[in-house]
């Protein structure tokens, strides 16, 4: 199984590739940031604050996450001249955030809790299967078959928010960084210093909870 250490080699390679193919957006944004252009900072913050907060949230928890993000932004502004574009701007920002958060922890790293906190609509557990491993309660077809159709239901959106709020801080961050921010699993395990296998477990369980929420809504029409 690929551990985070091996994954790190892959991200070094990805970093080297980034030199050659620096995202157009970064190349365009950097000089404007260095010049202190207000609009450039608005773009930067709107794009990356969510991902930075997810990283901080996973490492220091909800109480100190906002402060860590604030400190990270200050460090970013201070270090802009030194940014060599060896990685993408996003990777650089998230690395600064993770480092700021780890410094805040001062070695009191919290344990990675893989024990699952129950979610409002459960998961896809053993009770769904027969002893031979075949489905006992197989999934039914859903009424809505596109994300737009599902999200048009206000109640479902609220329901989903509740499920997301029920996740542990680490699990919620892993899910957000993967599904909403599009980070590779290797990037997530490097940033959060969690093994790749733990990231996979956390992500899988979170996805099953989200699935169970949508399924519950599709079957009952309510939260």
């Amino acid at each position, binding site marked *: 199984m*690929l551990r985070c250490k091996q994954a790190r080699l892959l991200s070094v390679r990805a970093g080297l590739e980034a030199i050659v193919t620096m995202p157009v957006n970064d190349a365009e944004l950097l000089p404007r*940031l*260095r*010049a*202190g*252009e*207000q609009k*450039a*900072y*608005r773009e*930067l*913050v*709107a794009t990356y*604050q*969510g991902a930075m907060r997810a990283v901080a949230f996973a490492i220091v928890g909800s109480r100190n996450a906002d402060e860590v993000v*604030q400190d990270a*932004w*200050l460090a*970013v*502004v*201070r270090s*802009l001249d030194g940014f060599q574009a060896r990685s993408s701007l996003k990777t650089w920002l998230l690395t600064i955030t993770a480092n700021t958060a780890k410094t805040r922890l001062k070695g009191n790293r919290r344990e990675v809790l893989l024990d699952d906190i129950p979610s409002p609509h459960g998961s*896809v557990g*053993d009770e*769904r*299967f027969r002893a*031979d*491993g*075949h*489905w006992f309660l*197989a*999934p039914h*077809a*859903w009424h809505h*078959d*596109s*994300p*737009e159709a*599902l*999200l048009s239901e206000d109640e479902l*959106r609220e329901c*989903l928010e509740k499920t997301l709020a029920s996740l542990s801080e680490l699990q919620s961050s892993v*899910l957000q960084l*993967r*599904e*909403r921010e599009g980070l590779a*699993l290797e990037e997530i395990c490097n940033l959060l210093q969690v093994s790749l296998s733990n990231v*996979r477990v956390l*992500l*899988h369980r979170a*996805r*099953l909870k*989200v*699935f169970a929420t*949508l*399924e519950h809504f599709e079957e009952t029409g309510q939260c």
Partner: protein
Amino acid sequence: MLSCKGLVAHSSDYIDGQLGVRQRWSMRMHLAMCVNCRRFIKQMRLSQAVLRQLPRGQHAELDEIADKLAELRRQQR
């Protein structure tokens, strides 16, 4: 032979491309024969898309942070 339960257990790894060639192949074989599991994977992918498109809270305070950072940067130069 991979069971439906086994397929569900490995579904995220399948979606994320984390499986080896043999495991991926046995997932595909199972999916070719099992309508329930095909539906499950389809709904898992739909759940992912829903999360991606879930509206983000728009905070006025983000612009405020940005403006302060820009000012700080100009002061540094």
